[in-house]
């Protein structure tokens, strides 16, 4: 196992390099001039020069890349143009909120998906299965921002069960504030997970080792959880890991809808404000978060499935 972890950590290095290359290329080579984007079309030449110097754009491309990589490795993501504070600090403030939101959404998605996948798989091709799959088919086509607005209006504004935005001050308050947004974010993921898990359960249901387990006279609950769910989850886990990226993307929208001061909201605000260093820093950070999540899902998979580390 330690060997496996080490190997996966080493594999992370090329991915990180590639992330940096992609972001670098995006910012430098796509048409559009950051300085004039920041300053507007009628900017003075001197100002453009100053911004370019500030962003390091007056140097040659390889030098720029080297500076860029070095600053990331030293944890220096530059300063926000509009807020005038280090991007690292900004991200450190905002990212935990987004992470908490994402984790809650992931947990809620699993809580919804697992029992329904079981019901659908065990009542395959019958009414409960059809209803569940039909419902999720609709759920998959629902735009996150509209679900959010509806939940916000109904449970926040009208029924007043939940706050209509913000983040609160204490941890329980955070959970309370993030509940509706997390549900919003969880719905489409739970639909995807449900579909996958249902198929996986159906496949495992008639597996030889499940028949063997049944022939041992074990309790149904033990067979369902120990023998069926665990194996079915392994194949769904990869999808779950991949979905974390989608969740983080979805957080951009959810945080905007619910006015949550997280990294997603920061991203949108920075785009409106043409705050390049922040957009760039956030893009890299989120990509790093996702690749770490992939690593964690791999480890979890290895822990669940002893064949992986072989």
């Amino acid at each position, binding site marked *: 196992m330690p060997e496996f972890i080490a190997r996966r950590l080493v594999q992370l290095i090329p991915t990180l390099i590639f992330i940096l290359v992609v972001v670098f290329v995006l910012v430098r080579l796509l048409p559009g001039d950051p300085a004039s984007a920041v300053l507007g079309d009628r900017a003075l030449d001197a100002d453009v020069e100053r911004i370019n110097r500030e962003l390091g754009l007056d140097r040659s491309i390889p030098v720029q890349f080297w500076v860029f990589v070095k600053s990331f490795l030293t944890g220096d993501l530059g300063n926000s143009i509009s807020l005038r504070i280090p991007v690292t600090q900004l991200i450190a403030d905002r990212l935990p909120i987004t992470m908490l939101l994402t984790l809650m959404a992931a947990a809620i998605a699993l809580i919804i998906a697992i029992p329904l996948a079981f019901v659908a798989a065990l009542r395959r091709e019958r009414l409960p299965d059809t209803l569940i799959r039909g419902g999720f088919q*609709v759920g*998959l*086509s629902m735009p996150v*921002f509209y679900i959010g607005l*509806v939940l916000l209006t109904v449970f926040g504004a009208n029924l007043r069960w939940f706050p209509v935005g913000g983040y609160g001050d204490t941890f329980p308050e955070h959970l309370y504030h993030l509940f509706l947004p997390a549900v919003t974010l969880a719905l489409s993921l739970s639909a995807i997970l449900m579909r996958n898990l249902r198929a996986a359960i159906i496949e495992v249901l008639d597996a030889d080792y499940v028949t063997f387990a049944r022939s041992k006279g074990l309790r149904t609950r033990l067979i369902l959880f120990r023998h069926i769910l665990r194996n079915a989850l392994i194949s769904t886990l990869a999808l779950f890991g991949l979905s974390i990226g989608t969740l983080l993307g979805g957080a951009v929208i959810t945080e905007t809808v619910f006015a949550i001061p997280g990294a997603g909201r920061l991203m949108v605000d920075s785009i409106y404000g043409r705050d390049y260093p922040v957009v*760039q820093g956030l893009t890299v950070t989120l990509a790093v978060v996702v690749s770490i999540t992939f690593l964690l899902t791999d480890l979890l998979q290895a822990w669940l499935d002893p064949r992986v580390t072989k």
Partner: protein
Amino acid sequence: MSESAQPEAADAARRSVRLPRPGHLPLPFIGGALILGLSVFVAAFPGLFAPYDPLAFDYNAVLQGPSAAHPFGTDNFGRDVLSRVIHAYTIDMQIAIFATIFPFVFGTAVGALVGYAGGIAETIFGRVVDAVITFPFLVLVIAIVSVLGPGLGNMYIAVGLVGWVFYARITAAEVRVQKRLDYADAGRAMGYTHARIIFRHLLPNAITPAIVYWMTDMALAILLGSSLGYLGLGAQPPAAEWGVQIAEAKNFMSTAWWMGVFPGLAIVVTGLGFSLLGDGLAELLRTRR
């Protein structure tokens, strides 16, 4: 076809789409095709269906609920919601197609080449895929849009830069399987060029999963397009686009629910159309195999 070579014939038999009679088509396929056929028609001729000008303000009819005159009500500028929803079909169906056509064509071609070549090409491609999927898709797209500036054209570029990877990955996997089947060997034995083997023999057989994914992807494109519209980074107001409409509705959720419900429904129904068609197509192509 003048060639009577064996692999060619076998290939043609595999490729010919013998559509079953309508009664034998999978139900999801029929449902999806009906919804989308109608959607495309509305998108092409919105004027035939829309009772009003989607952009015309009417300050005498602001925020009116559904009525005979305005079946879906009116918005805060007195614009007819039904007409806006109908005209939005033009933009949103366009998004579904324009945002996915390049990824589909380019991605399947790259996937076929990579899957056929194997070896180092496949390894490098694998790394590229690994790296691209570490960027949350929406985050990457809006980051690109932020550099290029808001608007639909730039959204297509952004989606195109990233989206092809998924098609390529799916197709490469399938080509890898097809490559091992006998008829590919037969083609090689006949001395066909690589290009001919890839694009005339392997790809037609390997493209099924990519086509099925394309349907899902079009539904995702509409969700993405309307999300960007909602954020103000896609279609720009006052254009009629479902996401833009919902953004306009957000301050009137309690007082004028009709402003958001109908564009929302349009998104759901269209998305449902695509995923039904995708499911039906998958079923159809699976039984044909």
